[in-house]
């Protein structure tokens, strides 16, 4: 752990396709990059006991989560030859079909970004204290669990 305060990964609400597009555009000046890889987590309209999920409301233990995101980022930079990496996660209500997680890795070489992205997404799912409340069409809810 370093002394610097971890970056804030969280954004209120869904992550827009405009924001994702702009993030890609910003990398046009970084010409040592030869490959980007992007993971987008989208809220699924699961049907559970006959009721359809309309949205997920995300909360988090924000300080611990940002520290964990930071650890994952540092470990990924040690393990893989990455030029840059960006992670954004939603807080609050994200409707079915909207994006709640955006992970973006870049490297000179393609093979690296496939491995790095899978590693980072799996670590996020397992290590980061974020909690999703699945809201159904009748306003009832249940708490989601990552498999």
């Amino acid at each position, binding site marked *: 752990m370093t002394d610097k305060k971890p970056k804030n990964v969280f954004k209120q609400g869904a992550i827009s396709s405009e924001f994702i597009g702009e993030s890609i555009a910003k990398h046009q000046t970084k010409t040592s990059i030869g490959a980007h890889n992007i993971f987008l*987590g989208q809220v699924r309209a699961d049907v559970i006991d006959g009721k359809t999920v309309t949205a997920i409301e*995300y*909360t*988090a*233990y924000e*300080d*611990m*989560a940002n*520290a964990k995101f930071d650890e994952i980022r540092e470990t990924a930079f040690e393990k893989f030859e990455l030029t840059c990496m960006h992670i954004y*996660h939603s807080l609050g209500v994200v409707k079915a079909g909207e994006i*709640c*997680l955006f992970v973006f890795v870049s490297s000179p070489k393609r093979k690296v970004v496939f491995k790095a992205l899978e590693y980072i*997404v799996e670590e*996020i*799912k*397992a*290590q*980061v*204290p*974020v*909690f*999703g*409340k699945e809201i159904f069409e009748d306003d009832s809810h249940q*708490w*989601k*669990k*990552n498999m």
Partner: protein
Amino acid sequence: MIITIKYFGLIAEVTNQSEESIDFSGRLISDLLNTLYAKYPDLKNKDFQVAQNQELVSESTEITGQELALLPPFSGG
């Protein structure tokens, strides 16, 4: 000593609050859990982990007085 415990997700629904401070004289996380089970019997059949100073700890860990949190299963992404 006075300790502060944060609750999240399903656990915050069981305790009906997101944070509380209690005067606690036990030594281990397991002592704290017994106190909380007495106060909130429904916690016993819930799945959660305990974090101290933002790191996951076991029931045999000593309580240091730093920030404690009860965390239900993670479901980010």
